[in-house]
Protein backbone atom coordinates (compact mmCIF):
# COMPACT_ATOMS: atom_id res chain seq x y z
CA UNK A 1 0.00 0.00 0.00
CA UNK A 2 2.85 2.32 0.84
CA UNK A 3 4.56 1.46 -2.41
CA UNK A 4 1.39 1.99 -4.40
CA UNK A 5 0.74 5.39 -2.89
CA UNK A 6 4.34 6.31 -3.64
CA UNK A 7 3.86 5.41 -7.27
CA UNK A 8 0.80 7.54 -7.59
CA UNK A 9 2.04 10.49 -5.59
CA UNK A 10 5.39 11.06 -7.22
CA UNK A 11 5.33 14.16 -9.36
CA UNK A 12 6.12 14.29 -13.06
CA UNK A 13 9.70 15.18 -13.77
CA UNK A 14 9.11 17.94 -16.32
CA UNK A 15 5.63 19.17 -15.66
CA UNK A 16 5.44 22.55 -17.34
CA UNK A 17 1.78 23.36 -16.72
CA UNK A 18 -0.27 23.36 -13.53
CA UNK A 19 0.08 19.82 -12.20
CA UNK A 20 -3.06 17.87 -11.36
CA UNK A 21 -3.71 17.03 -7.75
CA UNK A 22 -2.43 13.75 -6.34
CA UNK A 23 -5.98 12.52 -5.84
CA UNK A 24 -6.89 13.26 -9.47
CA UNK A 25 -3.79 11.49 -10.71
CA UNK A 26 -4.52 8.50 -8.50
CA UNK A 27 -8.07 8.18 -9.78
CA UNK A 28 -6.98 8.58 -13.40
CA UNK A 29 -4.19 6.03 -12.87
CA UNK A 30 -6.60 3.44 -11.50
CA UNK A 31 -9.00 4.03 -14.41
CA UNK A 32 -6.14 3.76 -16.89
CA UNK A 33 -4.98 0.46 -15.40
CA UNK A 34 -8.51 -0.99 -15.54
CA UNK A 35 -9.06 0.23 -19.10
CA UNK A 36 -5.71 -1.08 -20.33
CA UNK A 37 -6.40 -4.44 -18.68
CA UNK A 38 -9.68 -4.71 -20.61
CA UNK A 39 -7.95 -3.62 -23.83
CA UNK A 40 -5.28 -6.24 -23.27
CA UNK A 41 -7.87 -8.98 -22.72
CA UNK A 42 -9.88 -7.87 -25.77
CA UNK A 43 -6.88 -7.67 -28.08
CA UNK A 44 -5.17 -10.83 -26.89
CA UNK A 45 -8.37 -12.76 -27.53
CA UNK A 46 -8.28 -11.97 -31.23
CA UNK A 47 -6.52 -15.09 -32.48
CA UNK A 48 -7.87 -17.95 -30.40
CA UNK A 49 -9.11 -17.06 -26.93
CA UNK A 50 -8.54 -19.46 -24.09
CA UNK A 51 -11.35 -20.35 -21.73
CA UNK A 52 -10.01 -17.82 -19.21
CA UNK A 53 -9.90 -15.10 -21.86
CA UNK A 54 -13.43 -15.97 -22.95
CA UNK A 55 -14.66 -15.66 -19.39
CA UNK A 56 -12.86 -12.36 -18.91
CA UNK A 57 -14.25 -11.10 -22.21
CA UNK A 58 -17.72 -12.05 -21.08
CA UNK A 59 -17.09 -10.26 -17.79
CA UNK A 60 -15.90 -7.11 -19.53
CA UNK A 61 -18.40 -7.30 -22.37
CA UNK A 62 -20.60 -4.54 -21.00
CA UNK A 63 -17.64 -2.18 -21.39
CA UNK A 64 -15.74 -3.67 -24.33
CA UNK A 65 -18.64 -4.43 -26.69
CA UNK A 66 -20.25 -0.99 -26.84
CA UNK A 67 -16.83 0.62 -27.43
CA UNK A 68 -15.96 -1.96 -30.10
CA UNK A 69 -12.72 -2.85 -28.33
CA UNK A 70 -12.91 -6.47 -29.44
CA UNK A 71 -11.15 -6.58 -32.81
CA UNK A 72 -13.34 -9.31 -34.28
CA UNK A 73 -16.57 -8.24 -32.51
CA UNK A 74 -16.91 -11.72 -31.09
CA UNK A 75 -16.49 -13.41 -34.47
CA UNK A 76 -19.19 -11.32 -36.15
CA UNK A 77 -16.78 -9.07 -37.99
CA UNK A 78 -14.61 -9.85 -41.00
CA UNK A 79 -11.58 -8.12 -39.50
CA UNK A 80 -8.59 -9.94 -41.00
CA UNK A 81 -5.61 -8.35 -39.38
CA UNK A 82 -3.65 -11.46 -40.35
CA UNK A 83 -4.50 -10.64 -44.03
CA UNK A 84 -4.20 -14.28 -45.11
CA UNK A 85 -4.38 -17.69 -43.49
CA UNK A 86 -3.69 -19.58 -46.72
CA UNK A 87 -6.97 -21.47 -46.59
CA UNK A 88 -10.10 -21.37 -48.70
CA UNK A 89 -11.43 -18.81 -46.21
CA UNK A 90 -9.15 -16.25 -47.84
CA UNK A 91 -11.14 -16.37 -51.04
CA UNK A 92 -13.90 -13.93 -51.78
CA UNK A 93 -17.27 -15.65 -51.58
CA UNK A 94 -19.78 -15.29 -54.36
CA UNK A 95 -23.49 -15.46 -53.73
CA UNK A 96 -25.82 -16.25 -56.60
CA UNK A 97 -29.49 -15.65 -55.89
CA UNK A 98 -31.91 -16.93 -58.47
CA UNK A 99 -35.42 -15.63 -57.98
CA UNK A 100 -38.35 -17.33 -59.65
CA UNK A 101 -41.33 -15.11 -60.34
CA UNK A 102 -44.61 -15.59 -62.16
CA UNK A 103 -43.56 -13.52 -65.13
CA UNK A 104 -39.81 -13.89 -65.30
CA UNK A 105 -36.81 -15.22 -63.48
CA UNK A 106 -33.88 -13.10 -62.44
CA UNK A 107 -30.41 -13.71 -61.18
CA UNK A 108 -28.60 -11.52 -58.68
CA UNK A 109 -24.92 -11.96 -57.97
CA UNK A 110 -23.17 -10.61 -54.92
CA UNK A 111 -20.69 -8.97 -54.68
CA UNK A 112 -21.57 -6.43 -57.23
CA UNK A 113 -18.81 -6.65 -59.87
CA UNK A 114 -19.03 -2.91 -60.47
CA UNK A 115 -17.54 -2.30 -57.04
CA UNK A 116 -13.94 -3.37 -56.97
CA UNK A 117 -12.60 -1.53 -53.93
CA UNK A 118 -13.57 0.98 -51.27
CA UNK A 119 -15.89 0.84 -48.29
CA UNK A 120 -18.94 -0.37 -50.23
CA UNK A 121 -17.07 -3.28 -51.78
CA UNK A 122 -15.50 -4.17 -48.44
CA UNK A 123 -18.91 -4.20 -46.73
CA UNK A 124 -20.24 -6.60 -49.33
CA UNK A 125 -17.19 -8.80 -48.93
CA UNK A 126 -17.55 -8.75 -45.16
CA UNK A 127 -21.21 -9.71 -45.38
CA UNK A 128 -20.48 -12.55 -47.78
CA UNK A 129 -17.58 -13.71 -45.69
CA UNK A 130 -19.90 -13.86 -42.69
CA UNK A 131 -22.42 -15.71 -44.83
CA UNK A 132 -19.77 -18.28 -45.70
CA UNK A 133 -18.69 -18.59 -42.08
CA UNK A 134 -22.24 -19.22 -40.92
CA UNK A 135 -22.87 -21.55 -43.86
CA UNK A 136 -20.33 -23.95 -42.41
CA UNK A 137 -22.85 -25.00 -39.80
CA UNK A 138 -26.34 -26.27 -40.46
CA UNK A 139 -27.59 -24.51 -37.32
CA UNK A 140 -26.56 -21.06 -38.45
CA UNK A 141 -26.67 -21.39 -42.24
CA UNK A 142 -30.23 -20.14 -42.50
CA UNK A 143 -29.84 -17.00 -40.38
CA UNK A 144 -28.23 -14.76 -42.98
CA UNK A 145 -29.52 -16.58 -46.04
CA UNK A 146 -33.15 -16.06 -45.11
CA UNK A 147 -32.73 -12.36 -44.49
CA UNK A 148 -30.63 -11.76 -47.61
CA UNK A 149 -32.91 -13.96 -49.72
CA UNK A 150 -36.03 -12.32 -48.34
CA UNK A 151 -34.66 -8.88 -49.17
CA UNK A 152 -33.87 -9.84 -52.76
CA UNK A 153 -37.26 -11.56 -53.13
CA UNK A 154 -39.04 -8.49 -51.81
CA UNK A 155 -37.08 -6.35 -54.24
CA UNK A 156 -38.20 -8.53 -57.17
CA UNK A 157 -41.66 -9.21 -55.69
CA UNK A 158 -41.35 -12.98 -55.95
CA UNK A 159 -42.02 -15.82 -53.54
CA UNK A 160 -39.26 -18.26 -54.34
CA UNK A 161 -35.50 -18.11 -54.62
CA UNK A 162 -32.47 -20.32 -54.70
CA UNK A 163 -29.24 -19.19 -53.14
CA UNK A 164 -25.90 -20.68 -54.02
CA UNK A 165 -22.83 -19.71 -52.03
CA UNK A 166 -19.53 -20.61 -53.63
CA UNK A 167 -15.91 -19.67 -53.75
CA UNK A 168 -12.85 -20.48 -55.85
CA UNK A 169 -11.11 -23.79 -55.37
CA UNK A 170 -7.57 -24.41 -54.29
CA UNK A 171 -5.45 -25.94 -56.98
CA UNK A 172 -2.63 -28.36 -56.43
CA UNK A 173 0.78 -26.76 -56.34
CA UNK A 174 2.84 -28.31 -59.09
CA UNK A 175 6.17 -26.97 -57.85
CA UNK A 176 5.90 -27.78 -54.15
CA UNK A 177 3.74 -30.06 -52.07
CA UNK A 178 0.43 -28.66 -50.89
CA UNK A 179 -2.12 -26.40 -52.42
CA UNK A 180 -2.00 -22.94 -53.84
CA UNK A 181 -4.75 -20.52 -54.75
CA UNK A 182 -5.77 -20.54 -58.35
CA UNK A 183 -6.15 -17.14 -60.01
CA UNK A 184 -9.60 -15.70 -59.44
CA UNK A 185 -10.31 -15.63 -63.17
CA UNK A 186 -9.76 -19.38 -63.47
CA UNK A 187 -13.44 -19.84 -62.70
CA UNK A 188 -13.10 -23.04 -60.72
CA UNK A 189 -15.62 -22.88 -57.94
CA UNK A 190 -16.83 -25.08 -55.12
CA UNK A 191 -20.17 -24.82 -53.36
CA UNK A 192 -19.97 -24.53 -49.61
CA UNK A 193 -21.25 -27.34 -47.41
CA UNK A 194 -24.51 -25.67 -46.49
CA UNK A 195 -24.22 -23.08 -49.20
CA UNK A 196 -27.16 -24.06 -51.39
CA UNK A 197 -30.56 -23.19 -50.06
CA UNK A 198 -34.06 -22.77 -51.32
CA UNK A 199 -36.11 -20.04 -49.75
CA UNK A 200 -39.85 -19.93 -50.12
CA UNK A 201 -41.92 -17.13 -48.68
CA UNK A 202 -45.10 -18.35 -47.00
CA UNK A 203 -48.46 -18.02 -48.69
CA UNK A 204 -51.24 -16.22 -46.92
CA UNK A 205 -52.95 -19.17 -45.21
CA UNK A 206 -50.10 -21.29 -43.91
CA UNK A 207 -50.15 -23.41 -47.04
CA UNK A 208 -47.83 -26.40 -46.89
CA UNK A 209 -44.95 -26.05 -49.26
CA UNK A 210 -43.08 -29.02 -50.63
CA UNK A 211 -39.38 -28.51 -50.81
CA UNK A 212 -37.18 -30.59 -53.09
CA UNK A 213 -36.08 -33.77 -51.34
CA UNK A 214 -37.94 -32.93 -48.16
CA UNK A 215 -41.32 -33.59 -46.64
CA UNK A 216 -44.11 -31.05 -46.58
CA UNK A 217 -43.63 -28.25 -44.14
CA UNK A 218 -45.93 -25.54 -42.91
CA UNK A 219 -44.56 -22.07 -43.30
CA UNK A 220 -46.11 -19.17 -41.39
CA UNK A 221 -47.40 -16.28 -43.41
CA UNK A 222 -44.93 -13.52 -44.01
CA UNK A 223 -42.05 -15.62 -42.73
CA UNK A 224 -39.35 -17.20 -44.77
CA UNK A 225 -38.18 -20.74 -44.52
CA UNK A 226 -34.81 -22.05 -45.59
CA UNK A 227 -33.89 -25.64 -46.23
CA UNK A 228 -30.57 -27.01 -47.27
CA UNK A 229 -30.43 -29.22 -50.30
CA UNK A 230 -27.65 -31.50 -51.35
CA UNK A 231 -24.68 -29.65 -52.72
CA UNK A 232 -24.13 -30.03 -56.41
CA UNK A 233 -21.24 -28.78 -58.49
CA UNK A 234 -22.16 -25.67 -60.38
CA UNK A 235 -22.92 -26.12 -64.03
CA UNK A 236 -20.46 -23.97 -65.88
CA UNK A 237 -18.51 -21.03 -64.67
CA UNK A 238 -19.48 -17.64 -63.31
CA UNK A 239 -22.84 -16.44 -64.47
CA UNK A 240 -23.77 -13.07 -65.75
CA UNK A 241 -24.60 -10.57 -63.11
CA UNK A 242 -27.48 -8.24 -62.57
CA UNK A 243 -26.06 -6.77 -59.37
CA UNK A 244 -28.11 -5.18 -56.67
Amino acid at each position, binding site marked *: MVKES*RILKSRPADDSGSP*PSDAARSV*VSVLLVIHLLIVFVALSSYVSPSSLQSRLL*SLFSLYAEPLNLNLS*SGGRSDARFYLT*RTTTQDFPVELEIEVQGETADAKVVLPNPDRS*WGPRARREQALLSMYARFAQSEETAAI*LSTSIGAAVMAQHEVQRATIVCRRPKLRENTQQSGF*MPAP*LHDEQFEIMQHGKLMIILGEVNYNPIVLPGRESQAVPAGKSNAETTESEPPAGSRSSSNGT
Partner: protein
Amino acid sequence: MIESTRNYFDTLTRRSGEGWNRFWFTPSGAMSLAVLRILTGLMALWLHLTLLPDLVTYFGPEGMLPVETIRQLSSDPQSSTPRYVFSYLTLCRTSDDLQAAHAIGAVVLVMFTVGLFSRLTSLLALVVVLATIHRGVVLTAEVEPILTMVMCYLCLGPTGAHLSVDRWLVRRKLLKEKNEDHAAATRPEEGPAPTMSAQVATRLIQVHLAAIYAVMVLSKLANEAWWDGEAVYWLTHTSPSALIDLTWLYAYPKTIDAWTHAIVLFELSFGLFVWIPLARPLMLSVAVVMWLSLALLTGLVPFCLMMLVANLAFVSPQAMQAAVAMVLRRGPASAMAESRA
Protein backbone atom coordinates in the same frame (compact mmCIF):
# COMPACT_ATOMS: atom_id res chain seq x y z
CA MET B 1 21.07 -8.22 2.67
CA ILE B 2 17.56 -7.34 3.81
CA GLU B 3 18.44 -3.67 3.75
CA SER B 4 19.78 -3.84 0.19
CA THR B 5 16.69 -5.75 -0.96
CA ARG B 6 14.48 -3.11 0.62
CA ASN B 7 16.48 -0.35 -1.04
CA TYR B 8 16.15 -2.09 -4.37
CA PHE B 9 12.37 -2.28 -4.14
CA ASP B 10 12.17 1.29 -2.84
CA THR B 11 14.15 2.51 -5.83
CA LEU B 12 12.12 0.34 -8.18
CA THR B 13 8.78 1.65 -6.95
CA ARG B 14 9.94 5.25 -6.85
CA ARG B 15 11.36 5.20 -10.34
CA SER B 16 8.38 3.27 -11.70
CA GLY B 17 6.08 5.86 -10.20
CA GLU B 18 8.08 8.71 -11.66
CA GLY B 19 8.16 7.02 -15.03
CA TRP B 20 4.42 6.35 -14.93
CA ASN B 21 3.63 9.95 -14.06
CA ARG B 22 6.04 11.31 -16.65
CA PHE B 23 4.54 9.06 -19.32
CA TRP B 24 0.89 9.77 -18.62
CA PHE B 25 0.69 13.13 -16.89
CA THR B 26 3.29 15.40 -18.45
CA PRO B 27 1.14 18.13 -20.02
CA SER B 28 1.46 18.27 -23.78
CA GLY B 29 0.13 20.27 -26.69
CA ALA B 30 -2.94 19.28 -28.65
CA MET B 31 -1.85 19.96 -32.22
CA SER B 32 -1.41 16.24 -32.97
CA LEU B 33 -4.88 15.57 -31.59
CA ALA B 34 -6.32 18.35 -33.74
CA VAL B 35 -4.82 16.87 -36.91
CA LEU B 36 -6.02 13.44 -35.83
CA ARG B 37 -9.50 14.88 -35.31
CA ILE B 38 -9.62 16.27 -38.83
CA LEU B 39 -8.27 13.18 -40.57
CA THR B 40 -10.28 10.74 -38.44
CA GLY B 41 -13.39 12.83 -38.99
CA LEU B 42 -12.82 12.76 -42.75
CA MET B 43 -12.37 8.99 -42.61
CA ALA B 44 -15.53 8.54 -40.53
CA LEU B 45 -17.41 10.83 -42.90
CA TRP B 46 -16.19 8.85 -45.92
CA LEU B 47 -17.36 5.56 -44.41
CA HIS B 48 -20.63 7.15 -43.31
CA LEU B 49 -21.46 8.69 -46.68
CA THR B 50 -20.55 5.58 -48.67
CA LEU B 51 -23.10 3.67 -46.62
CA LEU B 52 -25.88 6.00 -47.75
CA PRO B 53 -26.59 4.32 -51.15
CA ASP B 54 -26.88 0.92 -49.43
CA LEU B 55 -28.52 2.09 -46.23
CA VAL B 56 -32.04 0.94 -47.03
CA THR B 57 -30.77 -2.19 -48.80
CA TYR B 58 -29.07 -3.28 -45.59
CA PHE B 59 -31.09 -1.74 -42.75
CA GLY B 60 -34.41 -0.84 -44.33
CA PRO B 61 -37.76 -2.43 -43.41
CA GLU B 62 -37.19 -5.10 -46.08
CA GLY B 63 -33.44 -4.94 -45.93
CA MET B 64 -30.87 -7.71 -45.84
CA LEU B 65 -30.06 -7.21 -42.17
CA PRO B 66 -33.18 -6.87 -40.06
CA VAL B 67 -32.65 -6.17 -36.37
CA GLU B 68 -33.77 -9.70 -35.54
CA THR B 69 -31.05 -11.19 -37.74
CA ILE B 70 -28.36 -9.15 -35.99
CA ARG B 71 -29.78 -10.25 -32.63
CA GLN B 72 -29.66 -13.88 -33.72
CA LEU B 73 -26.09 -13.56 -34.94
CA SER B 74 -25.10 -11.88 -31.70
CA SER B 75 -26.59 -14.46 -29.39
CA ASP B 76 -23.85 -16.41 -27.68
CA PRO B 77 -25.08 -19.74 -26.32
CA GLN B 78 -22.03 -20.05 -24.05
CA SER B 79 -22.57 -16.72 -22.38
CA SER B 80 -25.40 -15.50 -20.20
CA THR B 81 -24.58 -11.91 -21.11
CA PRO B 82 -26.26 -10.74 -24.30
CA ARG B 83 -23.68 -9.52 -26.81
CA TYR B 84 -26.17 -7.51 -28.81
CA VAL B 85 -25.48 -3.81 -28.42
CA PHE B 86 -28.16 -1.21 -28.86
CA SER B 87 -27.99 1.18 -31.78
CA TYR B 88 -30.30 4.14 -32.27
CA LEU B 89 -30.72 3.04 -35.89
CA THR B 90 -32.86 0.14 -34.65
CA LEU B 91 -35.51 2.69 -33.69
CA CYS B 92 -35.93 3.73 -37.33
CA ARG B 93 -38.94 1.84 -38.66
CA THR B 94 -39.18 3.36 -42.11
CA SER B 95 -36.68 4.14 -44.83
CA ASP B 96 -37.27 7.86 -44.35
CA ASP B 97 -36.50 7.63 -40.64
CA LEU B 98 -33.35 5.74 -41.44
CA GLN B 99 -32.16 8.26 -43.98
CA ALA B 100 -32.99 11.16 -41.68
CA ALA B 101 -31.01 9.58 -38.84
CA HIS B 102 -28.14 8.95 -41.20
CA ALA B 103 -28.21 12.55 -42.43
CA ILE B 104 -28.14 13.84 -38.84
CA GLY B 105 -25.19 11.53 -38.20
CA ALA B 106 -23.39 13.02 -41.21
CA VAL B 107 -23.98 16.55 -39.87
CA VAL B 108 -22.52 15.52 -36.50
CA LEU B 109 -19.46 14.06 -38.22
CA VAL B 110 -18.97 17.26 -40.23
CA MET B 111 -19.18 19.31 -37.02
CA PHE B 112 -16.65 16.99 -35.40
CA THR B 113 -14.29 17.27 -38.35
CA VAL B 114 -14.32 21.05 -38.49
CA GLY B 115 -14.11 21.28 -34.71
CA LEU B 116 -17.40 22.94 -33.86
CA PHE B 117 -18.40 22.38 -30.21
CA SER B 118 -15.56 19.86 -30.17
CA ARG B 119 -16.10 18.45 -26.69
CA LEU B 120 -19.70 17.60 -27.44
CA THR B 121 -19.40 16.62 -31.09
CA SER B 122 -16.45 14.29 -30.44
CA LEU B 123 -18.73 12.30 -28.14
CA LEU B 124 -21.68 12.46 -30.52
CA ALA B 125 -19.51 11.47 -33.48
CA LEU B 126 -18.35 8.42 -31.56
CA VAL B 127 -21.97 7.53 -30.82
CA VAL B 128 -22.86 7.88 -34.52
CA VAL B 129 -20.01 5.66 -35.67
CA LEU B 130 -20.61 3.05 -32.96
CA ALA B 131 -24.35 2.99 -33.67
CA THR B 132 -23.70 2.31 -37.35
CA ILE B 133 -21.21 -0.42 -36.50
CA HIS B 134 -23.50 -2.16 -34.01
CA ARG B 135 -26.48 -1.96 -36.35
CA GLY B 136 -24.61 -3.79 -39.08
CA VAL B 137 -21.80 -5.56 -37.28
CA VAL B 138 -21.47 -8.19 -40.01
CA LEU B 139 -20.62 -5.42 -42.47
CA THR B 140 -17.58 -4.36 -40.49
CA ALA B 141 -13.99 -5.28 -41.16
CA GLU B 142 -10.51 -4.05 -40.25
CA VAL B 143 -10.98 -0.30 -40.38
CA GLU B 144 -13.78 0.03 -37.84
CA PRO B 145 -11.89 -1.08 -34.69
CA ILE B 146 -9.05 1.34 -35.51
CA LEU B 147 -11.46 4.17 -36.26
CA THR B 148 -13.46 3.73 -33.06
CA MET B 149 -10.30 3.36 -31.01
CA VAL B 150 -8.95 6.73 -32.17
CA MET B 151 -12.34 8.45 -31.91
CA CYS B 152 -12.85 7.08 -28.42
CA TYR B 153 -9.60 8.56 -27.15
CA LEU B 154 -10.12 11.82 -29.00
CA CYS B 155 -13.15 12.35 -26.74
CA LEU B 156 -10.75 12.63 -23.80
CA GLY B 157 -8.50 15.34 -25.20
CA PRO B 158 -8.91 19.00 -26.21
CA THR B 159 -9.23 18.21 -29.91
CA GLY B 160 -10.72 21.60 -30.71
CA ALA B 161 -7.77 23.53 -29.31
CA HIS B 162 -6.23 23.96 -32.75
CA LEU B 163 -7.38 24.08 -36.37
CA SER B 164 -11.02 24.25 -35.39
CA VAL B 165 -14.05 26.46 -35.64
CA ASP B 166 -14.06 26.58 -31.84
CA ARG B 167 -10.57 28.06 -31.86
CA TRP B 168 -11.51 30.53 -34.58
CA LEU B 169 -14.52 31.66 -32.57
CA VAL B 170 -12.39 32.17 -29.48
CA ARG B 171 -9.83 34.16 -31.45
CA ARG B 172 -12.52 36.31 -33.01
CA LYS B 173 -13.99 37.02 -29.61
CA LEU B 174 -10.57 37.93 -28.24
CA LEU B 175 -9.90 40.11 -31.25
CA LYS B 176 -13.07 42.05 -30.66
CA GLU B 177 -12.46 42.40 -26.95
CA LYS B 178 -8.81 43.32 -27.02
CA ASN B 179 -8.65 44.84 -30.47
CA GLU B 180 -5.44 42.95 -31.17
CA ASP B 181 -3.59 42.72 -34.41
CA HIS B 182 -5.58 40.48 -36.72
CA ALA B 183 -2.54 38.62 -38.14
CA ALA B 184 -1.24 37.83 -34.66
CA ALA B 185 -4.62 36.59 -33.53
CA THR B 186 -5.02 34.13 -36.36
CA ARG B 187 -1.72 32.33 -36.07
CA PRO B 188 -2.57 28.67 -36.33
CA GLU B 189 0.27 27.48 -34.14
CA GLU B 190 -0.76 29.50 -31.13
CA GLY B 191 -3.03 27.55 -28.88
CA PRO B 192 -3.90 26.94 -25.29
CA ALA B 193 -1.33 25.78 -22.79
CA PRO B 194 -0.31 22.11 -22.74
CA THR B 195 -2.73 19.97 -20.81
CA MET B 196 -2.74 16.64 -19.04
CA SER B 197 -5.83 15.47 -20.93
CA ALA B 198 -4.04 15.92 -24.26
CA GLN B 199 -1.20 13.79 -22.97
CA VAL B 200 -3.51 11.05 -21.66
CA ALA B 201 -5.47 10.92 -24.92
CA THR B 202 -2.32 10.81 -27.04
CA ARG B 203 -0.67 8.17 -24.87
CA LEU B 204 -3.78 5.99 -24.94
CA ILE B 205 -3.86 6.06 -28.73
CA GLN B 206 -0.15 5.25 -28.85
CA VAL B 207 -0.34 2.34 -26.39
CA HIS B 208 -3.49 0.91 -27.95
CA LEU B 209 -2.04 1.19 -31.45
CA ALA B 210 1.22 -0.49 -30.44
CA ALA B 211 -0.85 -3.32 -28.95
CA ILE B 212 -2.82 -3.63 -32.19
CA TYR B 213 0.45 -3.88 -34.11
CA ALA B 214 1.45 -6.68 -31.75
CA VAL B 215 -1.85 -8.47 -32.37
CA MET B 216 -1.41 -8.08 -36.13
CA VAL B 217 2.02 -9.61 -36.18
CA LEU B 218 1.18 -12.39 -33.72
CA SER B 219 -1.89 -13.38 -35.73
CA LYS B 220 0.30 -13.49 -38.84
CA LEU B 221 3.00 -15.55 -37.23
CA ALA B 222 0.41 -18.17 -36.28
CA ASN B 223 0.36 -19.12 -39.96
CA GLU B 224 3.13 -20.90 -41.81
CA ALA B 225 2.85 -18.77 -44.94
CA TRP B 226 4.14 -15.74 -43.07
CA TRP B 227 7.19 -17.73 -41.99
CA ASP B 228 8.03 -19.34 -45.34
CA GLY B 229 7.42 -16.19 -47.37
CA GLU B 230 4.36 -17.28 -49.37
CA ALA B 231 1.82 -14.94 -47.81
CA VAL B 232 2.20 -12.14 -50.35
CA TYR B 233 1.69 -14.66 -53.15
CA TRP B 234 -1.60 -15.71 -51.55
CA LEU B 235 -2.63 -12.09 -51.14
CA THR B 236 -1.98 -11.38 -54.82
CA HIS B 237 -4.32 -14.25 -55.71
CA THR B 238 -7.06 -13.95 -53.12
CA SER B 239 -7.59 -10.19 -52.73
CA PRO B 240 -10.62 -9.26 -54.81
CA SER B 241 -10.05 -5.55 -54.19
CA ALA B 242 -6.37 -5.38 -55.11
CA LEU B 243 -5.71 -2.06 -56.79
CA ILE B 244 -3.14 -3.51 -59.16
CA ASP B 245 -2.67 -7.00 -60.50
CA LEU B 246 0.48 -8.40 -58.93
CA THR B 247 0.00 -12.05 -59.86
CA TRP B 248 3.02 -11.74 -62.15
CA LEU B 249 5.15 -11.62 -59.00
CA TYR B 250 4.90 -15.42 -58.97
CA ALA B 251 7.81 -15.38 -61.39
CA TYR B 252 9.93 -13.64 -58.75
CA PRO B 253 9.73 -15.82 -55.64
CA LYS B 254 12.53 -13.97 -53.86
CA THR B 255 10.64 -10.71 -54.18
CA ILE B 256 7.55 -12.35 -52.71
CA ASP B 257 9.63 -13.78 -49.86
CA ALA B 258 11.27 -10.44 -49.15
CA TRP B 259 7.95 -8.54 -49.19
CA THR B 260 6.34 -11.06 -46.86
CA HIS B 261 9.20 -10.92 -44.37
CA ALA B 262 9.35 -7.12 -44.62
CA ILE B 263 5.70 -6.86 -43.57
CA VAL B 264 6.29 -9.12 -40.58
CA LEU B 265 9.53 -7.38 -39.62
CA PHE B 266 7.92 -3.96 -39.86
CA GLU B 267 4.93 -4.88 -37.69
CA LEU B 268 7.17 -6.66 -35.22
CA SER B 269 9.57 -3.77 -34.88
CA PHE B 270 7.06 -0.91 -34.99
CA GLY B 271 5.57 -1.60 -31.56
CA LEU B 272 9.04 -1.70 -30.03
CA PHE B 273 11.14 0.90 -31.81
CA VAL B 274 8.51 3.57 -32.18
CA TRP B 275 9.00 4.33 -28.49
CA ILE B 276 12.64 5.23 -29.07
CA PRO B 277 12.73 8.91 -30.08
CA LEU B 278 15.68 8.44 -32.43
CA ALA B 279 14.05 5.52 -34.26
CA ARG B 280 10.57 7.02 -34.36
CA PRO B 281 10.90 9.10 -37.57
CA LEU B 282 12.38 6.09 -39.32
CA MET B 283 9.54 3.80 -38.18
CA LEU B 284 6.91 6.34 -39.23
CA SER B 285 8.54 6.75 -42.64
CA VAL B 286 8.66 2.99 -43.15
CA ALA B 287 5.03 2.83 -42.02
CA VAL B 288 3.99 5.15 -44.86
CA VAL B 289 5.70 2.94 -47.45
CA MET B 290 4.40 -0.26 -45.89
CA TRP B 291 0.75 0.77 -45.55
CA LEU B 292 0.60 2.28 -49.03
CA SER B 293 2.08 -0.89 -50.51
CA LEU B 294 -0.40 -2.99 -48.54
CA ALA B 295 -3.22 -0.82 -49.86
CA LEU B 296 -2.10 -1.61 -53.40
CA LEU B 297 -1.67 -5.29 -52.63
CA THR B 298 -4.85 -5.96 -50.70
CA GLY B 299 -7.16 -3.15 -51.76
CA LEU B 300 -7.97 -2.47 -48.10
CA VAL B 301 -7.64 1.25 -48.72
CA PRO B 302 -9.75 2.58 -45.80
CA PHE B 303 -7.93 0.32 -43.35
CA CYS B 304 -4.45 1.22 -44.58
CA LEU B 305 -5.26 4.93 -44.62
CA MET B 306 -6.71 4.71 -41.11
CA MET B 307 -3.56 3.02 -39.87
CA LEU B 308 -1.52 5.86 -41.35
CA VAL B 309 -3.77 8.39 -39.64
CA ALA B 310 -3.50 6.58 -36.30
CA ASN B 311 0.30 6.52 -36.64
CA LEU B 312 0.23 10.33 -36.50
CA ALA B 313 -0.37 10.00 -32.75
CA PHE B 314 3.37 9.31 -32.52
CA VAL B 315 4.24 12.65 -34.09
CA SER B 316 5.06 15.17 -31.36
CA PRO B 317 2.88 18.27 -31.10
CA GLN B 318 5.93 20.43 -31.87
CA ALA B 319 6.71 18.55 -35.08
CA MET B 320 3.05 18.62 -36.01
CA GLN B 321 2.96 22.39 -35.45
CA ALA B 322 5.90 22.79 -37.78
CA ALA B 323 4.23 20.58 -40.38
CA VAL B 324 0.96 22.48 -40.12
CA ALA B 325 2.77 25.79 -40.40
CA MET B 326 4.56 24.51 -43.48
CA VAL B 327 1.30 23.38 -45.02
CA LEU B 328 -0.21 26.77 -44.28
CA ARG B 329 2.73 28.29 -46.18
CA ARG B 330 4.62 29.62 -43.22
CA GLY B 331 8.31 29.04 -42.73
CA PRO B 332 8.90 25.79 -40.81
CA ALA B 333 12.01 27.22 -39.15
CA SER B 334 10.13 30.16 -37.68
CA ALA B 335 7.33 27.89 -36.55
CA MET B 336 9.79 25.58 -34.84
CA ALA B 337 11.49 28.54 -33.19
CA GLU B 338 8.17 29.85 -31.94
CA SER B 339 7.11 26.44 -30.65
CA ARG B 340 10.44 26.07 -28.84
CA ALA B 341 9.99 29.51 -27.34
